């Protein structure tokens, strides 16, 4: 035992763990938005105009998933409510949840009803808006998955939404649409577009690795607001700093940045397990845990293919062979025929001495169905035929089949000869 060893209190470790987990599961609102400060200011000013001066606005937030659209909105709202306390209402809608006008209206009045008048929940919502005036509380409406919302709700309903923001006598209202679709403006009907003030904020994912590293570091760094144990915080942050200087950790970060679509969530996924492992024995984050988590989270389809049983690989090979003759959809009868033909021709060529056991039809059929269950093959059409004849197609690439078979040394040579 070195004298560096220090007994950290269990409480501070638990607190740090809990706070970090909250961040990693996407519930906490970060203190600073790394890389998004400018957008944050933009949105804040827009909403501030609504809340403070009663100006109605519409705005679209567009950006790929995981770039921080939701966090941006939450952050701005948090700042606003710190400043104005209860002087405005927020309504959250989600295109995935409120799937038609009635449900959307109900939800809207429910959320407003709680915030404005307790007992008038079923009032027609647009009358409610129109009954307001400049003096009424400003309303901020946030619509997630805006593209779905426009798709599911009727056009007049969406139009009314926008229309209200145009009429100055109505109560001040800001409409924030959040979407991943870049084409949102071209998808909207033109009468709705005319009501839109065309303002939009493009949120981008961090485009340099430096920004991303900074962001990642900010996720793992703790401060005094989490635990009062200053020494622990210092030590913890020092360890985090060490981590980020380590070469293999840098590699992990780089890999995520280059390969993942949703880089921040991918990073969170990898951090979760090391954070969960923090306890009295290991009060800090350990590099080995990270590398292990990377391996565990990185389950690609190739790995699954490698674990397939031999009969299933035979099926895939037969499909591959059919594909070579431009048969891209297939059914079990064709696959089995292809398989038996190959084996028979092999037996013929190699003479009677060699006897490859032919897999029985019903066993292979069962395997065929299991492949369908695992979505490696999928139905090609909706025709209701006996199951041997249902047309299927492959969901993986032919190259993947070749790779799996040629890289596995424990398979019989007969299999490999088929693809060569």
């Amino acid at each position, binding site marked *: 035992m070195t004298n560096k060893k220090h007994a950290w209190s269990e409480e501070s470790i638990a607190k740090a763990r809990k706070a970090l987990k909250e961040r990693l599961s996407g519930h906490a609102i970060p203190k600073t938005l790394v890389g998004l400060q400018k957008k944050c200011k933009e949105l804040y000013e827009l909403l501030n105009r609504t809340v403070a001066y009663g100006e109605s606005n519409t705005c679209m937030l567009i950006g790929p998933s995981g770039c921080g659209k939701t966090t941006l909105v939450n952050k701005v709202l948090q700042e606003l409510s710190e400043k104005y306390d209860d002087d405005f209402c927020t309504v959250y809608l989600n295109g995935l949840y409120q799937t038609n006008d009635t449900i959307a209206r109900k939800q809207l009045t429910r959320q407003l009803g709680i915030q404005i008048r307790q007992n008038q929940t079923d009032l027609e919502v647009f009358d409610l808006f129109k009954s307001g005036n400049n003096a009424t509380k400003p309303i901020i409406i946030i619509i997630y998955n805006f593209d779905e919302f426009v798709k599911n709700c009727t056009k007049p309903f969406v139009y009314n939404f926008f229309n209200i923001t145009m009429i100055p006598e109505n109560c001040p209202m800001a409409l924030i649409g959040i979407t991943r679709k870049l084409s949102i403006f071209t998808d909207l009907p033109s009468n709705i577009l005319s009501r839109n003030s065309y303002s939009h904020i493009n949120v981008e994912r961090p485009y340099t690795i430096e920004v991303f590293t900074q962001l990642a570091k900010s996720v793992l760094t703790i401060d005094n607001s989490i635990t009062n144990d200053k020494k622990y915080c210092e030590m913890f942050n020092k360890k985090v700093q060490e981590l980020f200087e380590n070469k293999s950790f840098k590699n992990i970060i780089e890999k995520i940045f280059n390969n993942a679509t949703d880089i921040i969530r991918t990073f969170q996924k990898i951090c979760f397990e090391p954070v969960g492992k923090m306890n009295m024995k290991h009060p800090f984050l350990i590099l080995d845990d990270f590398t292990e988590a990377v391996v565990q989270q990185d389950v690609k389809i190739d790995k699954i293919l490698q674990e397939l049983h031999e009969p299933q690989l035979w099926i895939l090979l037969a499909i591959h062979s059919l594909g070579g003759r431009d048969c891209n959809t297939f059914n079990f009868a064709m696959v089995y025929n292809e398989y038996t033909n190959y084996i028979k021709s092999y037996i013929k060529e190699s003479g009677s001495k060699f006897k490859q056991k032919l897999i029985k039809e019903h066993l292979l059929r069962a395997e065929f169905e299991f492949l369908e*269950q695992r979505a490696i093959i999928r139905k090609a059409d909706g025709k209701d035929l006996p199951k041997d004849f249902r047309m299927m197609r492959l969901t993986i690439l032919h190259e993947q089949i070749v790779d799996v078979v040629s890289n596995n040394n424990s398979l019989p040579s007969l299999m490999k000869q088929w693809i060569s």
Partner: protein
Amino acid sequence: MNELVEEFPGRSRQIETLINWFGEPTEKTPHSIFIHGNRALGKTEIIKKLFEIGFPKHNYSFLNCKIYFQLDDLFEVSLNLLSGKKHKCKNFDEFATTLQDICETSDETRYLIFDNAELLWNFSQTLVSALLTLPQWTGANLCIIFITQVPWEKFRRYVGMIEPFQLYFPEYSRSDVIQILEKTCPKDEDVEFYSSFVTYIYDVFSDSCDLIDLFRVIPDLYIKFIQPQNEERVSRNDYSLLFNELNPHVELALDNLYSQNITSLIENQLPTWSLYLLIAAFLASYIPQSLDKHLFSKEHEKQKHSRKRRKKEFNALKFNEQFTGPQTSEMERIIAIFQSIYQDSIIPYILLLQQLETFVSYHLFTRTTPVERKDVQSFRCNLSFNYIKQISKSINFDILRYLDDSSTM
């Protein structure tokens, strides 16, 4: 925890990860977990057991998506499990709102577990992405768990969904499976003796069988295995002889693994003429109409097709017959073929109709025209060639005459 690891050999890594993720009851968990792996690897069992031991009853809802076929049911049952009260819930919006209310009662994590999660796609196209955004949307301490055989890349239908934490269940190693199978050892049996038996069975079946199938076949085979020994023909230690005696039974078990023979059932219940009707329908489904005259009319010898044309037709036929499955054919045609191949007695038309109806309700035939249209009716035969072969053998009917005739030309 140790208990679990002991009960599920080879799964300690997965159990550890899960427990790590769940952490203390009030800590946040991953927003969603995607558990995937091949069939019969203990995914469902481990989750079930883990929650049974480690969590209060109202903190999780375990739903098997195979059981529920309506969205309302899915929502209502899961709300009921979480709160212990009945809720009316018609759409996702209400579900989210009620869930939020339930979660507000305490800080502890609630778990929504969906087994066979790939079936969620059948409910609606947005349900999965909506579920994945639930924890963020409600702001509650909520964890969505999907259990499925489908890998994530194939599970998500479009890019941009929130990506859940993945937990992969790899295949068991050989020693894991044998360890699991040894647990089925009867109490009065010597473990070593039993383990050599299961090892042998595993080596035979491992390619085409999963664990569940093994559990199914082992008890029967075990009885067969110790039979010679009980009859005192073979000594306990003479393994090679014991396995030799066992082999025919193993073959049989392998044959019956995924197929059940229904032919005897059909044969015993039906009169001979209706077997002919089955054959007629089969022929009608597999032989193109253009060949009818050639095959079924009595003067077909006189017919002269140009050889080339016939060959072309038969090549097409061969492809159809083997690979595209049965075609639909009109009832008149089926009956005409029936009358051509069955001439022992005259069967009243009405009986034929009745018999056809019965076959449809047995799912031996599929009706391809609407039921209301009695004037033109079409059917398709769903029987496989093997069944038809067996049936025609039992009534001494040479079906190959019709099919071979066509495929050899």
